[in-house]
């Protein structure tokens, strides 16, 4: 198993921490993992993205240039990462914020209204968890249980009820279907 | 018969290789005496600069390190923070301290590093052959301003004590001279106080000493003494520019 993943969104949407969570979950499941942020000159409001690899074998490059899966939480990310996907790859789109429809026909697409689902659960802050849940459900790279176990390791100061809410978002996201 | 003028324990018994009439020897002796009188010789580490006093690592009878040009206060910082029980001083000339090492001078003062800096201001680069220093006087001739320092071309001399005075971190700043015996005695008092401050953990202390450089100035030793009194002292007035007491008062007032 090898999953090269790119996660992208506005700074503040939580793609960086969702990526760390994914890597931590993979580690808990005994897989080889890496996480690599696109780091740049500091600025607010820009697009943030990270690469995550979850694999059975050793991870070669931590920079995922041809992703198996891309998670795009905002419009600019779609334009950037849709073309990079491998043929047959999976594109998870936050349809609450991304209006453009993906153009490629050689990939699988999951339109997930992450913000709307998160809002229903109580706060849009957990939209990233909905997307991560969808990724886990659709790729099987890691289990929802592993992510739930990883949560307190990554968010060390989070209160139990917040962690619980995150798990709810993960589970809701895992129900997503791809076409 | 009583020996009244012995070699101070703070200096190694060896001839100093400075030019006749140079002020370094006097200041070396002063520092050496202070190390002895304060009983700190065996726990003092000195930093020798690049310049004429590069050989200070041989002369002072305490652990010594010789470092890159201008970086004395940074090296002293590293030593003091690693061994706070040691007394650490940096001995520097004007090119070293006020030109290439200006950033280290200012920032170690701003951090109020608990170190002592002995600053020899002779308004010239001695070792390299009498080039213009940041402290060279307007009109003073040097090998890189042969017609005399022209402010339009070479800018103006830097007054270190006045400059550092604005920094809250500077604890003790005094300018003295060694062109007369009376002034040398005052210099010793200042140097002693600068070490005493460190012993009492009062932060950054610097003594700027106006000093003769007959070779660099192309003058006789006697004329060099006169040069300090007539030309240097008006530009570089002697006195205390900052004392720990002033600093405490200021801090108390602010609180």
């Amino acid at each position, binding site marked *: 198993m090898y999953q090269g993943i790119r996660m992208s969104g506005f700074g503040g949407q939580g793609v960086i921490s969702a990526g*760390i969570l994914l*890597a*931590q979950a993979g*580690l808990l499941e005994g897989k*080889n*993992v*890496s*996480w*690599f*942020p696109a*780091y*740049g*000159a500091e600025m607010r409001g820009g697009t943030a993205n990270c690469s995550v690899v979850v694999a059975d*074998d*050793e*991870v*070669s*490059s*931590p*920079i995922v*240039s*041809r992703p198996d899966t891309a998670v795009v939480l905002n419009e600019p990310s779609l334009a950037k990462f849709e073309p990079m996907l491998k043929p047959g790859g999976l594109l998870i789109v936050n349809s609450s914020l991304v209006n453009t429809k993906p153009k490629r026909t050689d990939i699988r697409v999951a339109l997930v209204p992450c913000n709307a689902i998160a809002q229903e659960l109580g706060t849009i802050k957990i939209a990233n968890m909905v997307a991560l849940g969808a990724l886990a459900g659709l790729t099987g790279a890691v289990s929802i249980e592993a992510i739930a176990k990883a949560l307190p*390791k990554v968010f060390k100061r989070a209160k139990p009820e917040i962690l619980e809410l995150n798990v709810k978002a993960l589970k809701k996201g895992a129900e997503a279907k791809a076409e | 018969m009583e020996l009244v003028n012995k070699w101070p324990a703070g200096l*190694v018994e060896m001839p100093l290789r400075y030019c006749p009439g140079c002020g370094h020897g006097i200041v070396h002796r002063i520092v050496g005496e202070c190390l002895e009188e304060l009983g700190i*010789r*065996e*726990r003092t*580490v000195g*930093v*020798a600069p690049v310049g004429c006093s*590069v050989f200070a*690592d*041989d002369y*002072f*009878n*305490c*652990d*010594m*390190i*010789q*470092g*890159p040009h201008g*970086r004395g206060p*940074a*090296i*002293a*910082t*590293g*030593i*003091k*923070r*690693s*061994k706070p*029980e*040691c007394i650490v001083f940096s001995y520097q000339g004007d090119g070293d301290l006020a030109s290439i090492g200006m*950033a*280290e001078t*200012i*920032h170690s003062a701003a*951090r109020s590093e608990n170190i002592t800096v002995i600053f020899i201001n002779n308004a010239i680069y001695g070792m390299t052959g009498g080039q213009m220093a940041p402290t060279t006087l307007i009109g003073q001739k040097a090998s890189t301003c042969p017609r005399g320092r022209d402010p339009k071309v070479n800018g103006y001399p830097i007054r270190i004590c006045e400059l550092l005075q604005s920094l809250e971190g500077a604890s003790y700043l005094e300018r003295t001279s060694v062109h007369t015996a009376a002034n040398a005695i005052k210099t010793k008092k200042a140097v002693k106080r600068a070490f005493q401050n460190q012993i009492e953990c009062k932060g950054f202390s610097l003594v700027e000493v106006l000093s003769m450089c007959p070779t660099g100035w192309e003058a006789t030793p006697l004329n060099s003494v006169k040069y300090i009194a007539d030309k240097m002292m008006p530009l570089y007035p002697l006195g205390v520019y900052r004392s720990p007491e002033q600093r405490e008062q200021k801090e108390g007032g602010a609180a």
Partner: protein
Amino acid sequence: MGEKILMKGNEALAEGAIRAGCRFFSGYPITPQNEVPEYMSWRLPDEGGTFIQAESEVAAINMIYGAASTGMRCMTSSSSPGISLKQEGISYCAGADLPFFYANVVRGGPGLGNIAASQGDYHQSVRGGGHGDYRVLVLAPNSVDEMANFPKKCYELAFRYRMPSMILADGILGQMMEPVEFKFEPVDPKSFKEAGWELGLAAGRRKRIVRSYDLREGELEKINAARLKKYREIEEKEVLFEAKQCDDAELVVVAYGTSSRIAAAAVKMARDKGLKVGLFRPITLWPFPKKQLAKLAEKSRKFLVVEMSMGQFVDDVRLAVCGRIEVDLYARPAGIPSGEETFAAVEKSYKSMTPARAAAPAKTAKPKGKPGRPRKKPAKKAGRPAKKTRKGGRR
């Protein structure tokens, strides 16, 4: 020990240094190594250590010079332009025989370059770097786990030989997160004994002097000759490397650090396609595994160097094999190759071996009993395949 934790390379490096006994750090901000000073600034005081944000890289390295002179296990880190500024101080430490440890999290250059990963500082690392005649010990990790575990090795070597040692990393190794396992118990600095050169409390002993000069006629040469002897000993004893699937390899890919990981992926692809390709990875870049490479040149037929620079590392590989074997180059100056791109370079290099030999790599091609002898080239046919100096993308 034991548990694997997910850590960022820069933080693993800092934690590894602290666990190896580092109690003094001075540095200056520069991307992509900022997590090192940031980590040190909160972690060191907890251990009774000192963190100083210096006013410049120049001041930072001179604080290290001072701290190292007391025998303190100290560290600084920076990225390429900052290391350039530190070179004078590093030269002084080498000249004064002071042990300390530093890390260069390399970014693209020259000049301000960029902040992405690069291997462009190879030469300045393995050739000393500053002015004068000296070496520093250079270790090149290729994982976050090694970022965490190499500082201990660096300190041990630095103190054993009284000289600076460094980790040559890059933006990827600094910024990425990977599982880490600290493979040693934390070292207690109180357990270190004075060696007899340290400055400090001098009661009952003669004064000590730390300096990097000797102006007396003929003296500096003696000091440098002694240092050379030490360097020779290190070249003999301290070489570290990793060789994978080299035994039957016709083509050996030679790479270090991040590019060795990418090369590993390419080697795997090549093996999957039935190409006999191996991977040789120097872990110490100085001392360089010259002998090991020379030996490998006897049994394989071609080397391919993969580096994220113009062709610096390849110089040492070519010096090591001394013309015995053809050495191709896949250079990506300030570029980061993918596994696929690297595989393409491997395949091209492999296929440009002369067909006769590629078909029959066995005994006949090897004159027996004369190892080390330059092999005869089969006439002019193959000539020298065009060097693959790729005009790197992503500028």
